[in-house]
């Protein structure tokens, strides 16, 4: 009877291990301890209307740069704080120096997926040198 009990425990453990192995898609990563790149990090203002998405996909920082042509470049570092794959879309809107939205036919809600605990950098370049400001919106995919 005791043997049966231990066998059942081993089987249960194996099943749990197998299930968690299949479900978990967490990512391991490595990078230099001292980064040689100089980042100009921007303080951000977040408005969370979708708490669950904000909790799952966290913005770690926003890095900006302007090259010689005067086009603003942005890089948003995001992390999936959950242990499973997360689907989301993001949309970047650009504004001129007066805060007026620059409308373009290429504005799109770009789909993105992140494996568990994965980090990703979303990069974008302003469509015109007139763009001085931006807003990034994160949305849950709608099925």
């Amino acid at each position: 009877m005791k043997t049966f009990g231990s066998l059942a425990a081993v089987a249960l453990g194996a099943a749990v291990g197998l299930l968690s192995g299949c479900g978990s898609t967490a990512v391991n990563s490595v990078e230099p301890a001292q980064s040689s790149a100089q980042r100009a990090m921007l303080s951000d203002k977040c408005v969370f209307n979708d708490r669950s998405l904000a909790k799952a996909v966290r913005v770690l920082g926003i890095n900006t740069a302007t090259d010689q042509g005067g086009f603003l470049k942005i890089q948003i570092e995001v992390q999936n704080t959950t242990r499973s794959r997360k689907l989301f879309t993001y949309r970047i809107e650009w504004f001129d120096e007066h805060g007026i939205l620059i409308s373009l036919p290429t504005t799109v809600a770009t789909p993105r997926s992140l494996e568990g605990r994965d980090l990703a950098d979303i990069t974008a370049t302003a469509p015109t040198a007139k763009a001085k400001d931006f807003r990034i919106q994160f949305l849950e995919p709608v099925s």
Partner: protein
Amino acid sequence: MKSTLTSAALAATALIVGCSSPKTTYVEPGSSRLVTNVDQINIQDFAQAADTMVNSLIDNLINPGQLKSGVPDQPALLAISRIQNNTGTQLDTDLLVKKMRVALLRTGKVQTSTTIAYGGAEDPLMAEEEKNNQFFNDKPKRRPDYTLSGKIIEDRTRAGNVRQSAFVFQLSLSSRDGIGVWEDEKTIVKQGSRPTVGF
């Protein structure tokens, strides 16, 4: 008892009518509510590819100041060459190219010729006018500084119930010397268990 039941039935009906969505609605083309199919390139895929390509052009050619114009102080002139559709579906490549043209024009660094293009002028009337102008005024026609060519390729595969379609957008910008001064590729991969899925 009867009045309570009637009230409950009315409330339930109101709730159902109130919650049921209309059959047809307008959606923003840049929203995440657009219909997505595994088997075909959707409108948002073209926008995504165009956005990536324009970003790449700005980053690699326009922003570093490598885009050269044949006429000083004028934007570079671009002509659209062949954009080949190698997918199994008939599609209008202007869904990609026009978006890029609009975005490139907004940069202030690029203009597109409407009279010089692969397969014929986009604006035939202006092409005629240009011919007349050349003939009567002996004014040389401005030649394009760059041409844009490319290909859209499709790859489909299936494993069990999971269907996968990959759409590859390849674009090249050639200078007057016939040298590819910019090239990029954007791959959009879609998976689904049914032919139609939402994202």
